[in-house]
């Protein structure tokens, strides 16, 4: 299994931020078996970093490794989507989700 470098951007200590941190840690522990590094960045403390990384929404997970880079937006409560974003899901589910997103289904 390849090594995962994940950066989680949040804004302040809100319930949503905490939820995102917990969800990501749980999924990683279950699926990545220690093969990961996770950084939590508070945009309020590092606004310039958010600018440089072009973070638009919070929470946002940026999967920097392995390539390709990918972003997952939200409190990560939909575990299937997170797995999809981390390339741990089947192709079938991916194409299914892509279609739903194009149709403009409210995923929030």
């Amino acid at each position, binding site marked *: 299994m390849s090594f995962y470098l994940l950066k989680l951007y949040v804004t302040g200590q809100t319930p949503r931020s905490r939820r995102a941190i917990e969800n990501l840690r749980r999924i990683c522990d279950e699926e990545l078996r220690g093969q990961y590094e996770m950084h939590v960045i508070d945009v309020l403390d590092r606004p310039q970093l958010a600018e440089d990384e072009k973070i638009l929404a*919070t929470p946002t997970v940026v999967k920097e490794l392995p390539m390709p880079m990918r972003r997952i*937006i939200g409190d990560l409560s939909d575990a299937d989507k997170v797995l999809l974003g981390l390339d741990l899901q089947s192709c079938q589910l991916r194409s299914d989700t892509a279609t739903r997103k194009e149709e403009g289904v409210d995923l929030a």
Partner: protein
Amino acid sequence: MTWHNQRTAVAKLATGVPGFDLIGYGGLPEGRSTLLSGTSGSAKTVFACQFLAEGIRRGQTGVFVTFEESPEAIRKNMEGFNWNIPAWEAEGKWAFVDVSPHPGQETIVSGNYDLNALLVRIENAVRKTGARRMSLDSLGGIFAQLGDSGTVRNELFRIVSALKKMGVTSIITAERTEEYGQVSRYGIEEFVTDNVIILRNGLEQEKRRRTIEILKFRGAPHQKGEYPFTVSPNQGVVVIPLSAIELTQKSTDMRIRSGVPELDRMCGGGFFRDSIVLLSGATGTGKTLVTTSFIAGGVESGERCLLFAFEESRDQLFRNATGWGVDFEKMEEVGNLKVVCEYPETGSLEDHLIAMKAVVDEFKPQRIAIDSLSALERVATVKSFREFAIGLTSYIKDKNVAGLFTATSSSLLGGSSVTETHISTITDTIILLRYVEMHGEMRRGVTVLKMRGSTHEKNIREFTIDGNGMHVGKPFRNISGILSGHFIHRPQDEMDRLREMFKEDADGVAQTLNIPGAGDRGR
């Protein structure tokens, strides 16, 4: 209460966009957001950048939030307007907040999110630069990235509210799908409701016509309706505020020589210093000749003269002038004359107007001749042409410059031109040149149809053209219907009889009223 008093109700921030502050009665409502909506290619991004560029010129810093184009693309595209964005960024006067989509990076949504990161970045940029102005271009881009969801709408509403708290004056651009229809795509006006401006780029009779309209400024007055504008390479967006032009021109009794002494006599001693003269005639009646004489007369009196030619090339004009004994080349060398030759098709009328104003401002002439104004008709709709004519005339009158415009009438005999129909009321003097058919021969006639503030001769006089120019002779006596083009020749004896009749009458009246010398009139 007049609008002059109301103007103070909501403070305005001057945009610096030429002409816009006139129709906005001072600019954009200060400390508020204004929605700038327009179809694709309606110059929204240019306006948004210009708002910041003009701010920087006035010592106010700005933040540009881009949702669609990358900062690199904007920096490059705005180079053409001489806006050096990289230099301003280096000086801390301009900051980008880059929200443009990043290609190659797929985004997946899992659960609830907010746009706090964007808000933090905007606040950070405002704090860093001390910005008073902000442009967000274009808000629709965020829907393209995140989908048209309730979350995005709520979050954008929150951001717009936050902008108000920050005290920045902002322009938010939005796409619209048609020129006349809903204000913007995604209903962005629903959360930026205070102020709305619409840019249009409509197609009328195969010609593009750009207009700007202030739809509303909440609690603040503004001019209503559509105003033409153009995107000029040197200035960016330039609005032409026609009805906002005030009639403040001064008036003078000073006369100037037209260059044709007989014509001066017909006008009661020459044209007025600050008047606009319309010279109308069919092709070949001598309009260019009168124009040439007008210019030559001006240069002789030591005035600076400017000639805009839209029909003939420089070489043709100079050759014609030489044929009438006028040396344009020498006049240009001395510096009293500037001849600008341009094909009407090189730009829209708005472009021409701005270019012509620039030349007038630079050369500072005392006389301006345009040969011919009707040539410009063919590149525009009737509406645009009327606006152009009014814009140009008021500009020239404002400068206290004498103007001579020529208009070509469509038919050889009689008739009038579209040009005349649209600008005859704003000109002070109208001179007609007409062909007169007499016993199988074409002669030329000239008459002064109107002259504001002066008596003038009412006769239609014959004139000839030779190597020295124009020579005005006797009035046509035994022919009528010249202006309509339906000539009626009257035998000499009938003309004499008519004259006798009126003479007797005049004598009779004079005798009854006992006016000395009145009976001598007409002898």
